């Protein structure tokens, strides 16, 4: 008995921690079926599916969601492009200034969001070149997403068999063709998860947006504004839907990665230098 407990205590603690991680998500989903009497959705009153029938009925809320999705989409494209190029340079090339480049990528991640938001606002206010709004939000979101993209794509590139590219070059492919036909398909899963990650970072961002949004309202900013007067149940419904959609997207990326790894397994030597994990962080 003692032995069994000793063997399984770590797993038990792990499961407890998992419960802790998932509890608030369950609460959000459960309270999307609540039927609150007042303006505040904090106390369980009764079950209803009423808010699931018309979750997009509140115009400002729906508008904020559309703004957030547009912003996240554009951020994801730009940050993935810029970050992937940096990752390729860092892994593939030796060059002067490499340490400085690494620092420039690490420091934004280590800077508290409130400081990033404040410095961007100082910049926008002092220079007056950019008017606060969607444009400044896009600038800020691309900025803080780049570093994360670099890290995800880099980890994919490190576990990459360069002989495949050499083979393509030997067979007469130009540098660009090699990149397009060999490199890109092989790093695609990494680029895909990087794109997904920057989308998620952007749609989730509150602090930096809080400083640089002007009159533009994103989904998190709407929730922040609604907090004072009571957050509508529709927010829970939309949050639950967003969660479900991202879970499905994430799972499909994992399945795709598995498939790619299975293909790689055909060459035994590949297993040895396969990346440990390429989970977006």
């Amino acid at each position, binding site marked *: 008995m003692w032995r069994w407990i000793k063997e399984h205590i*770590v797993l038990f*603690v*792990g*499961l407890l921690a*998992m419960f*802790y*991680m998932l*509890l608030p*998500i369950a*609460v*959000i989903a459960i*309270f999307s079926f609540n039927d609150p009497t007042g303006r505040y959705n904090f*106390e369980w009153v009764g079950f209803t599916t009423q808010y699931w029938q018309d979750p997009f009925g509140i115009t400002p809320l729906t508008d904020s969601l559309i703004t957030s999705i547009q912003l996240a989409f554009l951020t994801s494209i730009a940050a993935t492009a*810029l970050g992937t*190029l*940096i990752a*390729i*340079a860092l892994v*593939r*090339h030796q*060059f002067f200034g490499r*340490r400085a480049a690494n620092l*420039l*990528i*690490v*420091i934004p*991640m*280590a*800077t*508290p969001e*409130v*400081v990033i938001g404040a*410095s961007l606002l*100082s*910049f926008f*206010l*002092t220079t007056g070149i950019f008017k606060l709004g969607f444009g400044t939000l896009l*600038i800020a979101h*691309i*900025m803080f997403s*780049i570093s994360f993209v670099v*890290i995800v794509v880099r*980890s994919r590139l*490190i576990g990459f068999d360069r002989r495949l590219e050499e083979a393509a070059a030997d067979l007469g492919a130009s540098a660009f063709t090699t990149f397009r036909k060999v490199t890109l398909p092989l790093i695609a899963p990494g680029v895909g998860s990087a794109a997904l990650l920057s989308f998620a970072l952007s*749609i*989730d*961002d*509150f*602090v930096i947006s*809080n400083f640089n949004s002007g009159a533009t309202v994103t989904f998190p900013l709407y*929730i922040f504004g609604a907090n004072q007067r009571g957050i509508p149940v529709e927010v*829970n419904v939309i*949050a639950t839907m*967003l*969660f479900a959609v*991202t*879970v499905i997207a994430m799972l499909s990326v994992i399945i795709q990665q598995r498939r790619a790894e299975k293909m790689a397994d055909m060459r035994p030597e590949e297993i040895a230098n396969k990346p*440990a994990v390429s989970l*977006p*962080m």
Partner: protein
Amino acid sequence: MNTFRQRLVPYALLGPGLIWLTIFFVIPMYYMLELSLKTGSLEAGFQMTWAFSNYTDAISQYSTQFWRAFYYAGIASFFCLLIGYPLAYAIAFKAGRWKNLMLFAVVAPFFTTYLIRTVAWKTILDDSSPVVSILKTLHIVPPDGRVLATSAAVIAGLTYNFLPFMVLPLFAALERLDRRLLEAGNDLYATSPQTFWRVTLPLTMPGIVAGVLLTFIPAAGDYVNVIFLGGTSQAMIGNVIQSKYLVVNDYPDAAALSFTLLAIILVALIIYIKFAGTSALMGEEEEAH
């Protein structure tokens, strides 16, 4: 000519991204520094007066909020480590085929908006919630007491929100651990706790340091948890910066405060990089060339 061109390739690849980071990260820091030394008001405009007194005033006036931010962030990182290490360990060594599912559970909170997660904690810790009544029955919370608007609620929120940032580097460090070293420990008659303290823990130290930094830094600058779960007597330095920038428009003081926060964190980070390099923070070992 060809080699010259080839040497330019990395710079062409780095160029667009690093220029973006320079214009919208480095240069704004300069403008914030400049703003922090100005005086004036929003209506009359701000003039450069080299007002270093902004710093001394701001720091002496808000030292409580600074200390509180580091205190809360410190406790929250400690709890993250306490919860995160067994969790990461369980995922790396005990989960078996459940590994991916458990990893997924760790990152799952990221898929719901940060603010909504915090609002969910407000629901969980609300005066009317079952959790609070259990705590009252157990006499952890006095019968007329509440959990919301206390330091405990804010620290709980910070711990929850930043836990994944602790688990992921710890998991990476544990996963990278050479299992043969653990076997060697056993072969040499070390008990499991001995193996843990003498082999596992020292070898995963870079992961621990990275995890603590990645939870401490965002927690120290946070203001969301205080707004939703705390009250004015829990205000952290982030709350002061936010309200000075966005509510009272006292930009120079706010800039001085955020610069001080950044300086303190950068000093800690530089000390860390001196010891461990950028590799652990980049989530990878230094690649071989």
